[in-house]
């Protein structure tokens, strides 16, 4: 039986003698606090929810005030403009809580992400907007992007939509050809990366430009020739000299050296294709003549000599 005046109790004046009040409490299962007898009335506090029962038990009951937080709320709500303000606040809160201020798209393919963004704009789903049925957006997106997206899910997190998707993956079918692999330059074969075809040369064999390295024809045991698909690359050691010059700008010799070395590497890398690499680098000349510095570097490369 904790006194709940801070939360809120009704203060009553009951125009009955104290003993009668106490007996009524027992009969009608009431709950009273701070009961005290005065000259003409009995004062007490009762929970707000018993207001109706107190009125029905005591004909001459007078409600003096309501204490605590409940009393404050009742007094606030007694003024119409405060009720209107409260209703407005609830309305604004309700509307704002149903607004969507952002759309986040999670997926692995940037093209699909862009496609979903564009489709949402076409469907009229642009932020900020009032939330709509997610199922409808999901169906519209799936219908529009059925060729691009395998799985799509939309959920509302706070005040934003989170769209997760998985793009459709298509297996790329590569058509094989019958073109022979022919050396595009001189070199010594370092390795073969051949999936299909008939190898005509061996590793460490010197080949010239124009030599057929992998053929599209193979001799079978019955002396007939069978045409093969050809696919692959042949890597070979090749050699190149790179010559770079620069004005003597008075910088320390080591700085000039490295500057020219980087310049030469940049030049040689422009001539390299995918998976090519520098095997060896040999400085042939580093000299200064008539105010100009000259560097000649001999490079041994491992290059794909079959790709034009």
């Amino acid at each position: 039986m904790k006194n709940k005046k801070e939360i809120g109790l009704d203060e009553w004046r009951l125009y009955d003698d104290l003993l009668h009040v106490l007996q009524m409490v027992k009969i009608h299962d009431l709950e009273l606090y701070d009961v005290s007898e005065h000259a003409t009335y009995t004062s007490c506090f009762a929970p707000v929810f018993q207001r109706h029962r107190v009125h029905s038990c005591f004909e001459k009951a007078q409600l003096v005030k309501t204490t605590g937080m409940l009393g404050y709320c009742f007094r606030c709500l007694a003024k119409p403009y405060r009720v209107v303000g409260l209703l407005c606040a609830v309305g604004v809160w309700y509307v704002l809580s149903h607004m969507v201020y952002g759309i986040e798209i999670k997926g692995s393919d940037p093209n699909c992400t862009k496609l979903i963004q564009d489709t949402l704009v076409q469907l009229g789903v642009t932020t900020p907007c009032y939330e709509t049925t997610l199922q409808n957006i999901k169906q519209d997106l799936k219908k529009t992007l059925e060729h691009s997206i395998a799985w799509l899910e939309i959920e509302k997190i706070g005040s934003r939509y989170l769209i997760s998707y998985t793009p459709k993956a298509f297996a790329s079918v590569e058509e094989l050809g019958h073109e022979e692999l022919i050396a595009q330059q001189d070199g010594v074969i370092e390795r073969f990366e051949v999936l299909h075809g008939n190898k005509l040369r061996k590793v460490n064999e010197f080949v010239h430009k124009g030599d057929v390295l992998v053929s599209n024809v193979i001799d079978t045991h019955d002396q007939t020739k069978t045409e093969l698909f050809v696919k692959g690359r042949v890597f070979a050691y090749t050699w190149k000299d790179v010559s770079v010059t620069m004005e003597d700008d008075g910088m320390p010799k080591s700085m000039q050296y490295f500057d020219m070395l980087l310049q030469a590497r940049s030049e040689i890398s422009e001539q390299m294709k995918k998976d090519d690499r520098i095997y060896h680098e040999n400085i042939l000349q580093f000299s200064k003549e008539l105010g100009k510095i000259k560097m000649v570097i001999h490079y041994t490369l491992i290059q794909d000599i079959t790709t034009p």
Partner: protein
Amino acid sequence: MLSIHSNQIMMEHYQEVLAVSSVQISVRFDAYIVLISGKDLQILALASSEIYLNGKLESIEFVYEK
């Protein structure tokens, strides 16, 4: 059941309050009547089965009815 602590009494499962004043309160229980005497006796809380009193307690008397 009576619980007494620092001039406060909690009585549970009472049947009826027989008399109330600032110097004496009598309450009927199943088998006896409790007479509480004191000064400035006040009912702090009251429910259908509990009474919580406060005041300067002087005596508590149990009267068994024949």
